[in-house]
């Protein structure tokens, strides 16, 4: 860590010598990635890499650059390039080196970084099992074509010319597998994954069971008749769906005039029962972001309260532009420019018993395809492929696949007809929400 700090200090000195303020972000990662195919490892990937990015502010203009090589010549070129880029940029009165804090902040703790002594052969066997245990479930399982175990040790360091230094070291294990089932000329495939801070916390059994359960459950799936249905997403898919429109909370998008909610702060955007907040250090969450990418210490932010948009994700520049409080959601990778991003999203519980919400027939969506390409954040229109189950209570009436689901996000936020009283976490433990029943979506099928 000291060596990295010395490298960044050298870069800071170069920038200061040119009369610029600056901040640097350094990412350093070690990755192990394993995949299995036909009973043996098909991928064994080990890597170590680093990248350093600089943002300079000189004469009110901002320039950025980065380098993956950390020798003196490359670093000097990087600083020169950032300064050169700044010369051609517009005046930017909002971007500043915002945080001055004398004491170094270290966000590393037991929650995000634990030492790992798991022997390699155990990880290898785990990966092989991601394939073999799926096959053992059912002779109709043709293969587990996509599977992976990965371990990432990551260090992020933020340093600015006002003396602020933040560091955090994390270790992440993740795995996923897929079940490809073929029976009577029909095929079905489903994925599931797990993330954890230690190897032993990976939920192997659940990954296997969920992958098989839905691949098998959807094998006989058929399209629904075209029409409107009560829609319920699993928590994972609900997280994807809401997250796909998370740009609506972007203060940068609002500042740039590209966020369609740019003029909506203080206005009703959803049903009264809906509140959405962002919790960077939520104790039940996987993500733990005690500082943002300008070095600000993070805090909880209410985005939507009782259906009213309260604020956007802000960094110091967007907060300055709108003359509002900085929510400390600055986001910048070493290769990028200053933006904003959310962390752990929490949707409040409602008052409905889940059993009551399930009394009427509903389409539970467990997998979606093409959500990103089929969504237009500006118009709010979306259309994506989906599969799942038509249910009543917990009984499956019909497995469903080969349908599309279409609607307008702005409208469906106002057509939530029920919200459960229990909060569930998604598989990544970054999205927390109750069961929600949506109206206003058209299912295209037969």
């Amino acid at each position, binding site marked *: 860590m000291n060596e990295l700090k010395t490298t960044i200090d050298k870069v800071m000195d170069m920038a200061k010598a040119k009369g610029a303020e600056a901040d640097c972000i350094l990412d350093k990662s070690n990755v192990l990635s394993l995949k299995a*195919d036909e009973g043996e490892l098909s*991928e*064994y*990937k*080990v*890597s*170590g*890499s680093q*990248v350093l*990015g600089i943002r300079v502010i000189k004469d009110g203009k*901002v*320039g950025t*650059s*980065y*380098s*993956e*090589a*950390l020798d003196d010549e*490359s670093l000097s070129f990087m600083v020169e390039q950032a300064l050169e*880029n700044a010369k*051609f*940029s*517009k005046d930017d009165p909002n971007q500043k080196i915002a945080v001055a804090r004398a004491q170094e902040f270290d966000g590393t703790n037991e929650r995000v970084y634990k030492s790992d002594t798991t022997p390699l*052969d155990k990880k290898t066997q785990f990966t092989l099992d991601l394939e073999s245990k799926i096959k053992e479930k059912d002779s109709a399982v*043709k*293969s587990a*074509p996509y599977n992976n175990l990965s371990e990432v040790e990551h260090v992020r360091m933020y340093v600015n010319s006002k003396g602020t230094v933040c560091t955090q070291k994390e270790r992440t294990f993740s795995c996923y597998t*897929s079940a*490809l089932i073929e029976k009577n000329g029909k*095929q*079905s*495939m489903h994925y599931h994954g797990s993330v954890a801070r230690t190897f032993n916390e990976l939920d192997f059994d659940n990954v296997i069971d969920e992958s098989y359960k839905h691949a098998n459950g959807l094998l006989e799936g058929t*399209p629904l008749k075209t029409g409107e249905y009560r829609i319920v997403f699993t928590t994972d898919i609900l997280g994807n769906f809401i997250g796909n429109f998370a740009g609506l909370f972007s203060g940068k998008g609002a500042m*740039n*005039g*590209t966020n369609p909610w740019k003029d909506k702060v203080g206005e009703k955007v959803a049903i009264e029962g809906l509140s959405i907040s962002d919790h960077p250090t939520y104790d039940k969450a996987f993500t733990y972001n005690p500082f943002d990418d300008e070095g600000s210490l993070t805090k909880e932010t209410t985005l939507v309260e009782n259906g009213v948009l309260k604020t956007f994700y802000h960094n110091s520049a967007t907060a300055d532009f709108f003359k509002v409080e900085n929510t400390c959601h600055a986001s910048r990778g070493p290769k990028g*420019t200053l933006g904003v991003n959310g962390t752990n999203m929490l949707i409040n519980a409602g008052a409905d018993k889940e059993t009551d919400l399930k009394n009427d027939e509903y389409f539970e969506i467990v997998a979606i*395809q*093409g959500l*990103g*390409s*089929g*969504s*237009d954040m*500006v*118009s709010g*229109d979306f*259309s*994506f*492929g989906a599969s799942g189950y038509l249910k009543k209570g917990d009984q499956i009436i019909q497995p469903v696949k*080969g*349908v*599309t689901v*279409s*609607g*307008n996000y702005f409208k469906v936020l106002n057509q939530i007809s029920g919200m459960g009283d229990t909060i569930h976490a998604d598989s990544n433990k970054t999205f927390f929400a109750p069961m929600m029943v949506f109206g206003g979506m*058209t299912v*295209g*099928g*037969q």
Partner: protein
Amino acid sequence: MLLDKTVAGRVIDHALSLGADFAELFVEKNNNARISVLSSKVHEIAGGVDFGIGIRLIYGTKVLYGYTNSTNEEELKKITTLIAANDQKASEGARSSFVDQVVKNIHPATLGLDSTYEMDEKIKFLFEIDKAARGVSEKVDQVNALSLQRLQTIELFNSEGLHTFDDRHYARLVAQVFAKDGSEQSTGYEGPGALQGWEFINTINAKQFGEDVARQALIKLTAVDCPAGKMPVIIDNGFGGVIFHEACGHLLETTSVSKKASVFWDKMDQMIANECVSAVDDGTIEGKWGSINIDDEGMPTQKTQLIKNGKLTSFLVDKVGAMKTGYDRTGSGRRQSYKFAPASRMRNTFIEPGDSTLEEMIASVPHGIYCKKMGGGSVQPGTGEFNFAAQESYLIKDGKIDKPLKSATLIGTGPEVLQQISMVGNNFELAAGMCGSVSGAIPTTVGQAAIKVDQILVGGQGK
């Protein structure tokens, strides 16, 4: 030269001493530059340099991969030892001496990032787009014009004696226009690209380009809900080719075929499409976005006939895919960067033109959709289920183009849709895109003349 040849030789010798059947070093330097104009001002200018070395070892057909940012011999050997740890065996052969393979540059660039073309000229071009788009209508609310340029230099060494290097110049121009009319908002988007320098962007008429993207946004402001259900769809040329890319192209990559995770894995020489369909993956087309001189395993690129008159004639085959399936390599080993092992991937992939006119196709549809511009999509190779988005589309009513429609998704399976293509047009065009898969995101071109799909599921909100 990015890596000392002697160092490369010693690292490969070390890999072979650990029993590897094949060893390869992929050395890469990437210069990037991005200029963005937003709100009629220079918004962001950014760039940087990526540099790293990927080490691939093959034991049998098993791939071991590692990478580092360092050119230090000891670091490279350390990673080699680490990745070979579980598979080490007695050495079975010595490295062939390096023979320099000079790459024939069939995609020359004149105004690449290594040229002295002025930044001011580039900025001026982007401002012209901004001005043109805003001039179309007062309903144009925001314009973002940006240019992306990249100079990727690669150097390859392998244990079979290959030593080669290549420069790839990429240029891409992107415009996004936001339009607003009361509470209705919409966007228009275009993003042409080429394996060329800024000279490619200079071939584009900035004024026309800005106006076209603005008109796309304005048309969508008046769009009505797209009907839902199965119906005939005419997919126009250019980016419409994403249907073939998703519905079929990915399923022909040996990455999926070798695992039998493709519905086409056992269909070689069989009819998999309507006989009016012939399809090609071609890396040789001069200056096209998905073109290359050599693939990322050092093999000269080629034109590969995938489907001829409906019959499957070739897969896309990389080195490991060839070892696993027995098919000959097609120069299709590609990767995003040194951080990825190569895999079989597409280049410029398209359905060859037929002889129908767009007008004939539209006239043949009593009730359906005409998709003028397509957006992105994805496929699940194991089942062939694909989806893609219609970015600009129109209702066809009684054989004539009617109202513009809001965005819709088209879904289906590859084998089904290939049989449903009943007409192929004569207005062939290619379009640039990015394709994400196991070896990362790479530039690929999709393309086709307009096609008629007799029946496909359209997801919309209308009746």
